[in-house]
């Protein structure tokens, strides 16, 4: 069971990047191990064993995620509130050739290997960022992104309008995104 011990936690994290529920992630990991066992004689050593295993997990998890994706109902657009999601000085002025365009574009990190995205330090930073959010934003982002509730369920549980629920989610995700950008930029 040494391989299971060595890669288990990482496999689970990679699975959870794509599927919401812990139970489904566990199934993905189990399925991935079976895939590893079946495919081991096809493993040609072109990548490391770890990379190969994580690729199997990511592929299976992606397939599961697509299968389980719920469609989001269309509703009307409401204002997102006046708290800017990104520092306004990062955009060009309105009299610019590119009015409101990026002056300081986001440091790219979304396509980093999943292994570095789910590193201990990154996850710790995300948790601390969540802890610093105002209570209402914390509740909404936890129910939506951790528990996987849909917006209707959150609106009912917290007695929010659809628009307010979205503003809270938007602010919470925007702040955590900014902290991640700062972190990955400093690490680059």
């Amino acid at each position, binding site marked *: *069971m040494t391989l299971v011990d060595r890669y288990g936690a990482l496999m689970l994290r990679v699975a959870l990047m794509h599927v919401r529920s812990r139970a489904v992630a566990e199934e993905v990991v189990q399925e991935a191990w079976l895939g590893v066992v079946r495919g081991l004689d096809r493993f040609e050593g072109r990548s490391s064993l770890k990379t190969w295993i994580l690729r199997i997990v990511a592929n299976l998890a992606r397939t599961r995620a697509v299968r389980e994706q719920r469609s989001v109902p269309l509703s009307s657009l409401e204002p997102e509130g006046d708290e800017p999601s990104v520092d306004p000085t990062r955009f060009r002025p309105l009299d610019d050739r590119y009015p409101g365009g990026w002056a300081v574009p986001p440091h790219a990190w979304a396509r980093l290997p999943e292994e570095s995205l789910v590193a201990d330090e990154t996850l710790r930073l995300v948790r601390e960022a969540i802890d610093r959010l105002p209570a209402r934003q914390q509740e909404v982002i936890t129910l939506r992104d951790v528990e996987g509730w849909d917006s209707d369920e959150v609106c009912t549980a917290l007695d929010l309008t659809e628009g307010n629920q*979205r503003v809270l989610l*938007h602010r919470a995700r925007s702040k955590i995104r900014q902290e991640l950008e700062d972190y990955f930029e400093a690490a680059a």
Partner: protein
Amino acid sequence: MTEPIVPGGISCREVVELVTAYLEGALDPDTRARFEVHLELCGPCFEYVEQIRATSRLVAVAATELDERPDRDALLKAFRAFHKET
């Protein structure tokens, strides 16, 4: 004086405010179409939207304990079932 350039008629500054409504499917069809035109033409905004998606996924992952491992008993069970099959 040359015309101002605003891809899709939505500025980057507006994109970062609309991203959640976009991901929630809450934009009206016309705004949604223009938002998508903007994303096709603007690399930094495309990256921004991907970062918001990644943030959402990382929030989910961060909620699991750092030292958490997959359920070993369930895994053993899956292995045993697999052995029986073959």
